[in-house]
């Protein structure tokens, strides 16, 4: 039988672009660093039954629409997108078990093949001001807000966080827009004295 011979691996939507990228480090990375975290394990679902089903699976559900909460033991995050849509990201075992689990009616699976970027650095706000018309500086991060908006013309989901007084934001978009989003933000980042970094260098922020 043929299929046993194959072991395909998933590939990030940014792979082609990254293969020719020049990474930055040091001061430049501290200014503004953009990393590709598209291949993080992810599970998505939505529907009127989503909240009770996720709870029954032991997944903590953010209480407010458009907010997030962390999984225990630093295993990842749960985002509540709007009122009844959810994105679970981080822990491969949890994601796999949710994908395999039986879903009752009222829970609709959403296949997540996002492009996802991790943006961090002291010049991050300057980048955001050039790309998105949401006042991120005015958000109260203690409520873990999630923002669904448009960035450089592309629909995105943004989770703003701060680590050691340095802003670090996760930005998800449809994979087909990923290369465009990354290239556009990189152009601006380079003007601000930053650039692309490997995901490993931002591992502490994951």
């Amino acid at each position, binding site marked *: 039988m043929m299929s046993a011979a194959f072991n395909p691996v998933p590939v990030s939507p940014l792979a082609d672009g990254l293969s020719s990228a020049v990474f930055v480090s040091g001061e430049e990375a501290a200014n503004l660093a953009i990393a590709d975290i598209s291949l993080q394990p992810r599970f998505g679902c939505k529907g009127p039954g989503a909240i009770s089903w996720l709870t029954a699976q032991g997944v903590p559900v953010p209480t407010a*629409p*458009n907010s997030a909460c962390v999984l225990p033991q630093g295993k990842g995050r749960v985002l509540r*997108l*709007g*009122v009844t849509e959810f994105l679970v990201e981080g822990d491969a075992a949890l994601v796999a078990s949710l994908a395999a689990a039986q879903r009752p009616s009222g829970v609709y699976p959403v296949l997540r093949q996002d492009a996802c970027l991790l943006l961090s650095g002291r010049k991050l706000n300057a980048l955001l001001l050039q790309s998105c*018309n*949401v006042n991120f500086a005015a958000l109260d991060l203690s409520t873990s807000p999630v*923002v*669904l*908006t*448009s960035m450089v013309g592309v*629909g*995105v989901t943004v989770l703003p966080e701060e680590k050691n007084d340095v802003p670090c934001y996760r930005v998800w978009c449809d994979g087909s827009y990923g290369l465009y989003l990354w290239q556009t933000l990189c152009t601006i980042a380079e003007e601000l004295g930053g650039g692309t970094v490997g995901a490993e260098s931002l591992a502490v922020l994951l």
Partner: protein
Amino acid sequence: MKIMTCPINGPRPVSEFFYWGALREMPNPDTASDDEWAAYVFNKSGAPGVKKEWWCHTASNTWFIAERDTEKDLVLRTYLYGEGE
């Protein structure tokens, strides 16, 4: 540019939205006369005043109703379909 307030995502610039058109009741397609049906499909009121309209926040695919005074260019209120009363 104008601000539109999505009931779920809050106030955003109007470029984040899609305007569908007036909220109107569909007459019974089986019992309406041809003229009534044609008026429903094609005729819309252009007079200035308070309108109830379908709007969509495209980034989150949130559909809602906006009440807008087109004479004064004011958005009076926005709410999810069915939660207007």
